[in-house]
C-alpha cells in the first residue's frame, strides 16, 4: 500500500484505535495502512470525521489543533499511543501540548532525491554536533518520518531544536549529508515538515571493497591515514604560496584514487578515525575529499582545511587543497603537448621549428624581439625549438603557473605561434594555438612541398 492521504482508507479498530479513556491514538499496520504510513493531514481529517459522526467521541475533547497542512498540535491530553504509531505518521510535525505547555515536539523529515538502492540504503542522523552514536532512520530509502526533537520535563527532558544533521553514506556510493539548520538558515527547529535534498548514486571512483581496504588488497591502504590537528599546519609550494590546514591526510605515496577510497571508507566507520591524538567520529566526520573529473579536491570541514601530504608524484597536478581560509591551493601546473610534423618536414634534414609567444610584453611574434617559448622540462631555459630530425612529433612541457618569459603573466593561457622551415622538401609553415592549463595539447605543422629551392653545389 502506498502512503495513505485519503481519510476514507482509515477505519477505527483496523488502522486506527482511538482510546478516549487514555486519550491515545494508535496506528496499526493493518488493513490499508502499511509501513508507507499515513499523512498527518489525512489522519487529522479522519479523526475529525470520527468526532463528527461517532457519537461516543464527540463528548471527548478534540485531539488536534491544525495549524497548517504540515503542522499540528495534539492537545487536551491526547498523544500517540506509542513510538510505532509516531513512526507511521508522514508529512507533518506536531507538538503534544497541555495547558499551553509543550511536552513533546516532533518534526517531519522528508528527503528529496533518490537513493540508489532504496531497499538497503539507509540514512542516519545526529541531533547534537558532538553526538557519537548515530540514529538510523526507521526505514530504508528516502526518508519521510517524524523525529522527536523536544521532550519536556517528565517526558525525557531534552531539547534538540538547535541542531540536526543527516547523512547518507553507503559503500561504493557517493556520500551526502545535510545540516538542516545551517542549510536552511533556521534559528531553531519547530514541529513542522522539513524537506531537504539527500541522495546517492554509484561512486565511479571507488572500486575497492571494504575488505580490500582492510586487507591492503590492491594498494597499501593502511598507509593512508588522517590526522586532525588542534593547531594549523602550514604547507608551502603552492602556486598561491603557502596555506594552513587542520586536517592532514597522509597519502603514504599511494595514488589519489586509493586515498579517496580509504578516506571514504573511514567516513563510514563507527569509530575514531583520527590517527593523531584527537578524536573524530567516522560516521559523522565531515567529508574530506571530492573527485572533480580526474582531479581530487579536498573540502573545507568544520575542523578546517584539508591537505594531502606524502602524495604520489604523478598526482601533483591532480590535487587541489582547500585551506583553513577556504582558499583552494595547488601545486604549480605543467602543461604538456606535442607538435606534429608532416612528411615534408620529416623528410627535410634541414627542417627546423620554433614556438614563439604570439604576444609578449618583450616582443610579439613577427618582430625582431619575438620571444621563443621555453620548455619546463629542465631547470635551465630550454627553448621549444630545434631540428625536426625526421621525427613525427615533438613533445613539450610548459610551466603554466611559473612561466614569466618577457614579463608575461604566469598562470594564464599562452597564445603561441609555431613556425618551421626546411630547405629541400619543406617550405616555410606557421600555425597558431593556445597553451592552456591542461595536458596533451596538440599542434600540427604542415609544410608545403618545396619545389623551387635549389642550391647547386
Amino acid at each position: 500500500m502506498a502512503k495513505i492521504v485519503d481519510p476514507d482508507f482509515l477505519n477505527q479498530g483496523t488502522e486506527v484505535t482511538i482510546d478516549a479513556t487514555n486519550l491515545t491514538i494508535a496506528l496499526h499496520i493493518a488493513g490499508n495502512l502499511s509501513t508507507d504510513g499515513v499523512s498527518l493531514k489525512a489522519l487529522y481529517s479522519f479523526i475529525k470525521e470520527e468526532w463528527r459522526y461517532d457519537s461516543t467521541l464527540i463528548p471527548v475533547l478534540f485531539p488536534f489543533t491544525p495549524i497548517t497542512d504540515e503542522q499540528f498540535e495534539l492537545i487536551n491530553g491526547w498523544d500517540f499511543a506509542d513510538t510505532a504509531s509516531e513512526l507511521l505518521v508522514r508529512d507533518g510535525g506536531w507538538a503534544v501540548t497541555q495547558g499551553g505547555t509543550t511536552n513533546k515536539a516532533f518534526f517531519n523529515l522528508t528527503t528529496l532525491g533518490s537513493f540508489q538502492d532504496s531497499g538497503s540504503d539507509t540514512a542516519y542522523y545526529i541531533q547534537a554536533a558532538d553526538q557519537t552514536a548515530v540514529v538510523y532512520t526507521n526505514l530504508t530509502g528516502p526518508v519521510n518520518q517524524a523525529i522527536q526533537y523536544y521532550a519536556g520535563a517528565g517526558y525525557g527532558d531534552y531539547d534538540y531544536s538547535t541542531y540536526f544533521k543527516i547523512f547518507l553514506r553507503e559503500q561504493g556510493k557517493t556520500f551526502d549529508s545535510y545540516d538542516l539548520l545551517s542549510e536552511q538558515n533556521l534559528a531553531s527547529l519547530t514541529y513542522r515538515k522539513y524537506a531537504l535534498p539527500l541522495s546517492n548514486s554509484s561512486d565511479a571512483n571507488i572500486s575497492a571493497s571494504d575488505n580490500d581496504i582492510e586487507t591492503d588488497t590492491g594498494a597499501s591502504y593502511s598507509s593512508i591515514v588522517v590526522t586532525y590537528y588542534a593547531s594549523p599546519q602550514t604547507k608551502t609550494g603552492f602556486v598561491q604560496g603557502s596555506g594552513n590546514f587542520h586536517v592532514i591526510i597522509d597519502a603514504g605515496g599511494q595514488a589519489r584514487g586509493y586515498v579517496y577510497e580509504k578516506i571514504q571508507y573511514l567516513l563510514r566507520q563507527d569509530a575514531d578515525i583520527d590517527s593523531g591524538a584527537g578524536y573524530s567520529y567516522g560516521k559523522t566526520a565531515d567529508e574530506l575529499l571530492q573527485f572533480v573529473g580526474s582531479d581530487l579536491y579536498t573540502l573545507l570541514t568544520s575542523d578546517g582545511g584539508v591537505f594531502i601530504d606524502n602524495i604520489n608524484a604523478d598526482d601533483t597536478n591532480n590535487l587541489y587543497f582547500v585551506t583553513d581560509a577556504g582558499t583552494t591551493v595547488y601545486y604549480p601546473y605543467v602543461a604538456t603537448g606535442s607538435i606534429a610534423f608532416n612528411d615534408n618536414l620529416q623528410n627535410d634534414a634541414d627542417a627546423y621549428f620554433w614556438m614563439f609567444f604570439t604576444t609578449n610584453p618583450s616582443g610579439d611574434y613577427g618582430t625582431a624581439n619575438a620571444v621563443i617559448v621555453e620548455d619546463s622540462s629542465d631547470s635551465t631555459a630550454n627553448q621549444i625549438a630545434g631540428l625536426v630530425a625526421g621525427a613525427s612529433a615533438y613533445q613539450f612541457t610548459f610551466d603554466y603557473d611559473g612561466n614569466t618569459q618577457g614579463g608575461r603573466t604566469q598562470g594564464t593561457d599562452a597564445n603561441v605561434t609555431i613556425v618551421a622551415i626546411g630547405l629541400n622538401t619543406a617550405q616555410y609553415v606557421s600555425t597558431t594555438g593556445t597553451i592552456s592549463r591542461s595536458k596533451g595539447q596538440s599542434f600540427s605543422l604542415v609544410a608545403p612541398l618545396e619545389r623551387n629551392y635549389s642550391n647547386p653545389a
Partner: protein
Amino acid sequence: MAAPSYSEDLTDIATGDEAAGWTNFSTNTQGSPSYQDSDYPYIQGSYAVTQTCSKSKTLGNLGYDNGSTITLPTDGAFLIWQNFSSPFAIDDYAGTATTYAGMHVLIGQDINNFGWWYVGGSDKSPNPYSGWQCHAVNTTVAFDTQTGTYTSDQVVGAGVALIAFPSKGEPHQVDAMRYGRCSAIFELGDSGNGYATIDGFASQNDVQTSRWGLIQVTSGGYLWQGRMLLGTGSNPVDFRDTNVNVFIKWCPKVTENFNLIEIQNINSYVSMTGFTFQVLDITTASRGRFLMSDPADVYLDQCTFVDMDTFVFDTTSGLNTVEITNTTFTRCGEVTQSEAVFDSCSFINCYSTSTIQASNLQNISNCAFTSDGSNHAIELDSNHAGGTYSLIGCTYNNYATSNGSTGNEPIYNNSGGHVTINVSGGDYPYYRNGPGSTTTIVQSIDWYFEIQNSAGTIVTNAEFRIYDSNGNQLYGVETSDGTELYSFDGSLSGTTARIVVLSLDYLYLSQTLTHPTTSNTASAPIVLTLTGDRVYDNPT
C-alpha cells in the same frame, strides 16, 4: 344588552328634608333638631337637619326614630351624612379631650339605650378642612361605648363631641340616613349604548336627590365605599373602563367584606384597564375585596391595587375568561386564582400567608413577587397534587433562597401530593412542602445559540453539543441548522457547560461557559464563531 343601568339597594331612614320627627339622644347637651333651613349646609335633597352647638366640651347629636327595628343585611351598613362646619371645635378620633370621638354614629332601640360607633374626628379626613361625610356603620361591629343598653337598631343618628363652641349658627348638620348592603349596582351596557363605567355610576350617585354616598366624584378620581356590584343575578353588566382612580373610603365601623367589588352573572363582562384602587387609610375595617361570585369574563390590565384585601377570581373552563395582566398588587391580601390567568403582574409585600392561592400554576407567568419577609408567593392547592406544571418567567425578591419551612419560600406546595414544576425563565423557586406534599422543581432556562463563521454567516451543518463537567451530554444535535435553543433545569445555573461545535469545514470548537441564571433570547443569542479549517481534506 342595553344602556347601562346604575342603581343601589339603600333604604331611606330619613332624608333630612323632613319638617319634623327628628330627635336628640339622651346624651345631647346642644340644640334641638332644626329643620328646612337652606341657609345651613346640606348634601342631599333640599335641606339637612341642624342644631346649635354653643356649649363647649359637651355632646351634641341628632337622631331619627325609624318607627321599627331595622335589620341590616349581611355586611351592610347604615349610611349617615354628617357635617360639622367648625372642625376645629370637635374632638379628635381618639377622644383625647372628651373621651368620645369627635364624630360618631348613634344607633339604638331608643334615645336612652343606644350604642356609639366612632367614625371621625378633627384628625380624620376630610378634617381639618371639614366637609360632608357619609359614615358607614354596621352595628354588628362592636360599639365603642353605649348609653343605657344597646339592643337593636331603630333610632339612628350622628353626634359630635365638642372641645370648643361656635356660639353662632347651627354648625352640626345631619342629612340623609339610609341603610342596606350599600351596593353600587352596575347592570347592562353595550357598545351601542355605552358600557357601564365608574363615572356613569358616580354621575347617578352624585345627583342632588341621590347622594347615595357609594361612588362619588372626588378630586383626582372617585371615592368609593360599599359594594361595587358588577352585574346582578338578574342582569349581566358590560363594564369597560379605563384610567380610573378609585379611592377606598376609610370605614372604621363596618365588616371586612363591606367594601367589595363583586362580579355576578356569568354573562357579565368586566374590563378594567389602567385602574388604581387605593385604600386611603389602612386603619379602615374594610380594605376592599374583589370577589367573582360568578364565572364572568374579567380582564384586568395595567391596574394597580394598593393596600386592598383579598381577591377571589372564578374561572370555569369553557365558560369564561379571566385574565389579569400587567397589574400590580401592592400590600394586598391573598389572591385566590381559581384558574385565572396572571401574566406580567407584580405582587409586592402581600400581607397574607400566601400571595396567590393557586389552583393552576400553569396560568401564572412572568410575574414578579416581592415578599414582606413572611410570605409565600404561590401556594398550590390540592388541584395540583400529582400534576406537572410549567412556571414561566416568574421572579422572587426577598424570598428564602433554599427549600424549607420558614414561610417565606416562593412556592408553598400545600397540595397534599407530589407536584413537578417545570420552570422556564425567571428565578429558581425554592419551595416549602405542606403535609403530604413533595415537590420537584425543574427549572428551565432558555439558552439560545447561533453558530456563525468568521464572516458572520450562519453555519448550518455543524454538530452541536453541550456537556457538563463530567462529560455527560446535556444537549446535542447531529446537524444544527445554525440556531439552537438549549433549555435546562435552573439547578444547573452556575455549573459548567462545555459547548462543542464541529463542522468538517471548520475548526473544532470547544468553549466552556457557565450555565446562566436567566434566559437569553433568540434575538440576543450566544454567538459561536467557527474558524475555517484550511487543513481538513477528504479528496474522494
